């Protein structure tokens, strides 16, 4: 049995009061709830404040380039499908620099989890608008307020028929831990967009603000109803629903490859006989 202590305790480089603490905490609890030992888990992140999270718990870690957590996670999962792979990064990383990978990952449906720490700002670079920033969000690079429409990752994911789409909130770590555990257990690509207050650079979407706007989906909400899920996903303003917004079963991407049934590619021999046959084809 794994316990929360197995995931260790580290000093962080985050600001006191940051929403990231709640997310880190929720993630650890979710891993324990999933009965995963640290060495079974691979956390892949990009660059940003959120992307530092994998350094603050015990696990296998690949902390890659800004925006590129998903392709690295996908490559790793395809090399070793036995790993529990979690791509974890900020909103800028996932939906900004990494937007194209986000779309492609949802279309593929590998068995992996996407945790987006969505503080609606580029925090590590000191506060520029991110794709999810509210329209009108004022920063030094957007002195008249962000003009572009705010990106709703949950709605786009549901529209694209992603197989698991949830929204959590850093201020409700227990609820969030539940969502993350469900996401990890889900067979398919599971997105958890996590609303995260940034006390240093987002003075609009604060803990107080989220408290006023967020609500939990009712117990009888049916996440398999696509049309309803779409409506729920598009609700993002006065009221913001939290929970599993959409979920369904779809074939797993990795099942295309017969070889992956035999486990990690690293442990598979090169077949001399196969090679002989292949070469024969050129005679």
């Amino acid at each position, binding site marked *: 049995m794994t316990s929360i202590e197995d995931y260790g305790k580290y000093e962080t*480089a985050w600001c006191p009061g940051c929403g990231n603490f709640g997310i880190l905490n929720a993630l650890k609890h979710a891993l324990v709830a999933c009965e995963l*030992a*640290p*060495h*079974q888990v*691979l956390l*892949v992140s990009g*660059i940003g404040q959120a992307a*530092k999270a994998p*350094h603050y718990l*015990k*696990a*296998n*870690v*690949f*902390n*890659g*380039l800004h925006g*590129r957590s*998903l*392709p*690295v*996670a*996908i*490559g*790793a*999962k*395809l*090399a*070793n499908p*036995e*790993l529990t792979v979690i791509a974890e990064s900020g909103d800028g990383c996932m939906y900004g620099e990494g937007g*194209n*990978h986000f*779309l*492609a990952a949802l279309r593929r449906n590998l068995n992996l989890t996407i945790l987006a720490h969505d503080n609606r700002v580029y925090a590590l670079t000191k506060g520029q608008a991110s794709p999810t920033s509210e329209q009108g969000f004022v920063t030094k690079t957007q002195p008249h307020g962000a003009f572009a429409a705010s990106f709703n990752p949950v709605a786009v994911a549901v529209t694209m028929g992603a197989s698991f789409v949830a929204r959590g909130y850093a201020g409700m770590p227990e609820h969030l831990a539940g969502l993350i555990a469900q996401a990890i257990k889900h067979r398919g690509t599971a997105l958890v967009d996590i609303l995260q207050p940034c006390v240093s650079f987002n003075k609009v979407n604060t803990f107080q603000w989220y408290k006023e706007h967020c609500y939990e989906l009712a117990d009888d909400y049916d996440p398999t109803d696509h049309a309803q899920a779409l409506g729920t996903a598009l609700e993002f303003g006065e009221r913001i629903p939290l929970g599993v917004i959409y979920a369904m079963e779809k074939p797993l991407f990795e099942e295309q*490859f*017969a*070889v*992956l049934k*035999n486990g*990690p*590619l*690293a*442990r*598979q*021999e*090169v*077949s*001399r*006989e*196969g*090679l*002989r*046959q*292949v*070469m024969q084809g*050129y*005679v």
Partner: protein
Amino acid sequence: MPRDIQLLIGGEAGQGLVTIGQLLSKALVRAGYEVFVSQSYHSRIRGGHNTYAIRLGEGPFFAPRESIDILVALNAETVELHREQLTGWALLIADSAFDPDLPGTISVPFAELGPEPLWNTAALALLGNILGLSLEPLYQAVEAMLGKKHPEALAENREIMEKSRVWAEAHVPEHDFALAGGSPVADRLLLNGNEAIALGALAGGLKFCAFYPMTPATSIVLELIAHAETMGCVFEQAEDEIAAVNMAIGAAFAGAPSMVATSGGGFALMAEGVSLAAMTETPVLIVVAQRPGPATGMPTRTEQADLEFVLHAGHGEFPRAIFAPGSIEACYQLTQKALALAELSQSPVFLLTDQFLADSARPVAPFDPTAIVPVRAGAEPDTAVTPYQRYRFTDDGLSPRLLPGLSTHLVVADSDEHDEEGHISEDHGVRIGMVEKRLRKFALLQQEAIAPELNGEKGADLLLVCWGSGQGPVQEAVAVLRDAGRSVAMLHFSQVWPLVPAQFLDILQASGKVVCVEGNATGQFARLIQRETCFAMPSRIARYDGLPFTARYILARLEKLIAVEARP
């Protein structure tokens, strides 16, 4: 039997000229002849002007020839475009519908022989007749192609082939192209450069390939995919090249020997990933199949102008190795070596090829599938010191590379500067240690570096220096010059980085005149040699019109350079 026949099939994209060419070259190889196949095509799907050229006879041949002995013109334009290249004794096979009225023309009434979709096989039979091949091996080639998918078409193909032979026997004028009875050589493989790279990758233990289609690299991936199931390989078409290289890095981190294949523009998008592989010390093979740039350039043509870019791509400093095979065999061997070296050095390793080599096919002696030494990723977990440190400081810069999830050791890799455990570090002392650790791996790469190959004597009057795909054409030019009694040698680099001057500087210095032959406008390799050795090579033969080198091209330029008399 003529020693050296250049046959060229020309027409529009979509006219099926590649089919004729492939069937004929396959039959020739099986019959024991030498061939050298080269292809030229436009960046379009229908129309334009494409060619499939087969140099054939006694050989071996390592380059195409410019002059043409037998021209198969599938349209009138082909005649116009190639008439200047025809030798005095050339035959020209053309549909009687556009009879070109040139000496040597064989005006074929294709419409009388059969329906249009079968004209390709008709032409094949005609060519067989001229070359003195019996119908059987040709028909077998057709059968092998159609057999499984279209067995219903076999009979009509056989019919038109026989008809064509009869027609040929009655109408082909006298000529000197009949080949002497070849003696079949068992098991030779007819491979082009990209096929050989794919085979090399599989033999080397490749398990993962991510890609985004880009000419002239795509066909490497197509070959891999065709054999993926047999060989237990996983592949994925990525959403872009950035994803491709990052997927390969992720897969390699998790233990799959991995590669990407692309061309210059796609590679440009991978530059940040190259730097990531270096920083995280993740092995990855990056194949760059060059075509003329800048930007989109000439997508289906050839050039050797990405050397300096590949050598310096990625921000920051780190060691790398770059292979540049010059032959089909080298494509096969060096791809294996590159995969192995990537794992050994825990670094990005490059293989530079180009459209010319990619699309050039030659028969090669069979490779021994039992002699391979496939990469085994990662160290054994039980050899690891506890607590395990992915980036432990070591004398040679190599730290034990464990694979995540295959033991209880935790593997932490980081794109930030990191400590020995792999966690972000902003410590200046650690930084110095890690910079030096990474750079120490250069010694291993130097030690493993393949020496350039000297063809000829050290101290020759003339030394032609080349790299990568330049090998074949330069070799032929050297042979011509030697036949003319000149003292000439060739120095070919199949690894262009690291350069180890001790391996070649004395050869350069001992030679009379040194001329660098490379397929770019600014002399990138010459400049690199100068940077590394202070040996200057002001005499250069450059080509940058999108076409490959030929012996004739080289000799003509040489003539200008040093008044060489001999010509091919």
